[in-house]
């Protein structure tokens, strides 16, 4: 039975397969599929097939009810780009959101991880505190922050009052020019936990000896960060950036809970505008076209992530 001790990696790599005894091989041919079947079937039906069907539907003009779909080719995409003002607002909001998500929660997460990586009295309590908002649903985060932005009773304006900065007071969520930013701030509060956790995990893999060695060589804390910590966190950073950007593009509930896309559609995102077009205006073709655009954007950020995840197979 020498063949059965071949490491799974080599066999599953599909190249250097060593000959297994016939009985085992026959059984192995179909048995893995039995183990995979429940997960693969439900995943294919619920996620993959609808995804492909959406791509197909985006080529039709359809209200979602009528028996006949009219094939229009790429007309839905053209309409979005040329005749749909809100699409551009949503795209711009998504871009702002994405840039903010890539810069702010990631930097705060890294900073907190660097500080909290050391063990001092209470460090685990601080980790819990800073991670905590990440376990709340975005709908709940949205509701909580809606109070903070309440024009009369909310903490934001009360604080500005107390600080003597009355001129900065706003009706935060009803001012069409700025409404998206308070929403992003609320989302940031929720988005810091995950990068912090991932960076903490990454920091744990850096051998303490490297720091000691650098210290002996006379490197200061900043130099140690730039020349030791940061290069070794490269992979973690890549994962963090990928996950934060994918999550940023998925944002939906928090808009729904805070502004519902308003005022005057100024806080629409592609995800929410897709919902409005499909379920409120019965423009299924346009809605699915937006979903495809959203997926394509996600793909740009996800490809490095997927490559990283599969490289280690």
């Amino acid at each position: 039975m020498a063949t059965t001790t071949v490491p799974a990696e080599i066999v599953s790599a599909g190249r250097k397969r060593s000959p297994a005894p016939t009985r085992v091989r026959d059984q192995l041919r179909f048995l893995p599929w039995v183990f995979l079947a429940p997960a693969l079937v439900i995943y294919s039906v619920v996620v993959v097939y609808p995804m492909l069907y959406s791509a197909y539907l985006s080529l039709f003009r359809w209200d979602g009810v009528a028996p006949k779909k009219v094939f229009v080719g790429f007309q839905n995409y053209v309409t979005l780009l040329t005749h749909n003002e809100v699409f551009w607002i949503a795209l711009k909001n998504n871009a702002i959101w994405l840039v903010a998500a890539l810069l702010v929660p990631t930097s705060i997460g890294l900073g907190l991880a660097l500080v909290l990586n050391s063990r001092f009295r209470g460090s685990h309590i601080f980790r819990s505190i800073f991670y905590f908002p990440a376990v709340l649903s975005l709908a709940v985060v949205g509701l909580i922050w809606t109070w903070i932005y309440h024009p009369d009773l909310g903490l934001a304006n009360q604080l500005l009052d107390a600080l003597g900065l009355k001129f900065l007071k706003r009706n935060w969520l009803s001012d069409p020019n700025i409404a998206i930013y308070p929403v992003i701030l609320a989302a940031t509060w929720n988005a810091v936990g995950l990068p912090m956790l991932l960076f903490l995990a990454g920091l744990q893999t850096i051998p303490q000896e490297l720091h000691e060695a650098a210290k002996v060589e006379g490197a200061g804390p900043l130099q140690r960060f730039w020349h030791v910590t940061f290069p070794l966190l490269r992979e973690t950073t890549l994962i963090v950036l990928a996950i934060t950007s994918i999550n940023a593009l998925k944002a939906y509930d928090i808009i729904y809970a805070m502004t519902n896309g308003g005022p005057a559609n100024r806080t629409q995102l592609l995800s929410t505008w897709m919902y409005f077009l499909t379920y409120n205006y019965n423009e299924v073709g346009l809605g699915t076209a937006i979903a495809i655009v959203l997926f394509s954007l996600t793909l740009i950020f996800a490809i490095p992530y997927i490559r990283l995840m599969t490289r280690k197979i």
Partner: protein
Amino acid sequence: MSQISTGAISARLKGTGPHNSSTQARYGARMPSAKVAIFYAALIAAALIWVTPVITLILTALKDAGDFAVNGAFSLPKSIRWANFSEAWQTGVGNYFWNSVIVTGVKVPIGILIESMAAFALTHMHFRWANKVFVYVLIGLIVPIQMTLVPLTLLMNALNLIDTLTGLIILYIGFGVPFGVLVMRGYFRTLPTAIIEAARIDGCSWFRIFYRIALPLALPAVVSLCILDGVATWNEFILAQIFLRSDELRTLPLGLVQFSTQFSTQYDQLAAAVLISVAPVMLVFLLFQRYFVAGMGGAVK
């Protein structure tokens, strides 16, 4: 990733003992006491700012509507009003709560079972398509849910599953597969092949190996996934919003947003309702927080 002991209570700020050179503070070690004080002051200030929204929520939930209207959210309640919770519970939140319990309670075990089986096949069964199937499953991690909504609506309509908890649970199981397989696969990969092979030689069937050996050995990963998946299911919004129509079937996040539009001025009750929905998550988090780290670590390994 289990070496990240978020639960460690050991205080090693001074870090002078020779035995803790490997775990001692990298930042903040051997600091003079004035610096220590500043360090703590800064950290505590930051933490206070960070929890302000939660404190606001708790304060609002404990005061009556009149107090809130006069003094706003961020002030101590004049008198504590527990009735907010029972009133919110009776106005529908209790119902939403139990719906969430049912959905999470059914979805998570079924999901983890089928995800573990799949992950086991991908790691230990000498399966030649393993890499391709894994990539196929990973795609699901990045699909925006919006990509699936319209076809799912048609599908669920055809199967008469719209506005049922059963339908919603099926969708949750499907969408949970990618993350679950990712985490379980990450853990199964660390199990020594020798154990599995030894059982094979002893004539153990693959189902028994999975059920009796692999799954029990993967218990830490199962617990992590249970918690992460449980919280994610408890918090899910968009699928519930689209596929549940009647009020009595709503889950908590959906019910709360609905509650907030219906009783938009009753902040006290709404805050109590939000707190009711957050409480179980808070409890799970406080009890099992190290599993959050372990689970996430498994996902990126």
